[in-house]
């Protein structure tokens, strides 16, 4: 494939340019969030929240139709509500947070499907779950760009607190009261990125764009300050090449992007210099 072929679809079609710009922006914020999700041992949280978004988005669709602000608000409230409910159940009952999330997200998914049925209008469930990057309109694009910029700004501001809270939470709590605030801001960003992403590449596919580049990056560096931009870069390249693949092979764009990220993850798993399978592994990898 020549360089011309890699760029031609974007030069020729405005919808491809919007998809590329939006997808790259989303990858730039979702990748670093994924790195922190892994470091905070919350890797499955993104998947659970992505399901949790559905009833809110379905309700918004029922009431307001295909309105971007309404879908965003509905998804945001539902996603944050589920994360908050899981944390509350854990605090009140001692049930582990992953277990309370695992219990809540099938409820959310089923409620979402039921609400879509009740709505009586046709919103393709497959579109909601797996999206279509090629349907990114100007409003969605601005939403994605705004979300990415906002996320990166908040991440930069709360970077130290998030890192120390993941590394040594007791020490952070002894010197600062910023830990819980940083955690809440971080969760909000995860939900916001999933919500804005599900409209472009689908609720389930966006989790792949968040977690796969982050997991792959872990096999290439042991430095947080390298892992964060590296995850963004891997995600951005996968968006670009995934869109090209989807264009020429007439395949759905979301799965193309995520499968490319998955292929790079598998390559990293085998060939990555940090505890990759081809290297000896003196330490068990936990992040």
């Amino acid at each position, binding site marked *: 494939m020549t360089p011309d072929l890699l760029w031609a679809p974007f030069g020729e079609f405005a919808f491809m340019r919007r998809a590329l710009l939006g997808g790259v922006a989303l990858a730039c914020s979702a990748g670093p969030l994924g790195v922190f999700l892994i*470091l905070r041992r919350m890797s499955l949280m993104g998947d659970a929240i992505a399901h949790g978004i559905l009833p809110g988005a379905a309700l918004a669709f029922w009431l307001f139709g295909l309105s971007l602000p309404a879908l965003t608000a509905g998804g945001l409230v539902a996603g944050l509500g589920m994360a908050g409910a899981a944390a509350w159940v854990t605090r009140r009952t001692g049930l582990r947070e992953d277990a309370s999330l695992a219990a809540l997200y099938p409820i959310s998914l089923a409620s979402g499907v039921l609400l879509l049925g009740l709505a009586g209008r046709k919103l393709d469930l497959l579109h909601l779950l797996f999206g279509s990057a090629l349907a990114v309109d100007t409003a969605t694009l601005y939403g994605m760009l705004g979300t990415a910029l906002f996320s990166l700004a908040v991440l930069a501001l709360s970077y*130290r607190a998030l*890192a*120390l809270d*993941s*590394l*040594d*939470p*007791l*020490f952070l*709590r*002894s*010197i*600062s*009261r910023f830990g819980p605030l940083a955690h809440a801001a971080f969760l909000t960003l995860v939900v916001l990125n999933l919500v804005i992403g599900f409209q472009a590449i689908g609720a389930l596919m966006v989790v792949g764009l968040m977690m796969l580049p982050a997991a792959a990056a*872990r096999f290439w*560096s*042991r*430095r*947080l300050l390298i*892992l964060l931009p590296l995850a963004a870069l891997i995600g951005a390249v996968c968006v670009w090449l995934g869109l090209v693949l989807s264009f020429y092979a007439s395949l759905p764009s979301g799965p193309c992007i995520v499968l490319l990220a998955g292929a790079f993850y598998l390559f990293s798993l085998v060939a990555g210099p940090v505890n990759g399978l081809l290297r000896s592994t003196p*330490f068990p*990898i*936990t*992040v």
Partner: protein
Amino acid sequence: MIECHGLQWGAGGRPLTPPVDLQLAAGSLTAVIGSNGSGKSSLLKVIAGLDRPLAGRIDLGVSLLGGVSYLPQQQHVDRQFPIRLAELVSAGFWRSRLGRDERRARLRQTLADWGLLDLQTQGLHALSGGELQRALLARLSLTDAQVLLLDEPEAALDDVGLGLLWRHIERWQREGRTLVLVSHNLAGLSHHHCDGLLIARSGCIKAPIRQFMAERQRLGQVA
């Protein structure tokens, strides 16, 4: 200075001891001793403001944030976290108002003080338990807090590390800081000038550590 009035602490609403009144002067060193599960680490967390007491109040004479520094046990630290030793130690500057150059010089000096200069670019995963413990102590010493709460500071340290630890503890005492540490090493503590605070179900006893050593047989295996 630490003053506790009618202090009770414990998990699940059940106090571990009767109410405790305690006065620890500035420049003092107090070793909290007691059997497993007696509530030594929990007491430190309550004084550090990490847990709420069940009853009573604590007066530190300084702000909780910035005035108090806490050394957690090693298992609370994620050994696989992708940062270097110098970055871990630098977290001690969290509330510092020093400029960049001053920080750099202070960090270098502190790493040298704890014998960590050669390890500053090592990732946490590559450190031994003793090296990580020295890094955590170096981070603590950068905080400049007046009240230092150390949960098992001797853990994993070899003789060289122990020497560094006690040299620093004596320096911190001379600087007028109040130190409380949790320890299981009663014999080791008896070589130093410090008080002991024995925590038991029947109540707390505070006395010079050598007295505990002398009466160890009568008190039973307390530490």
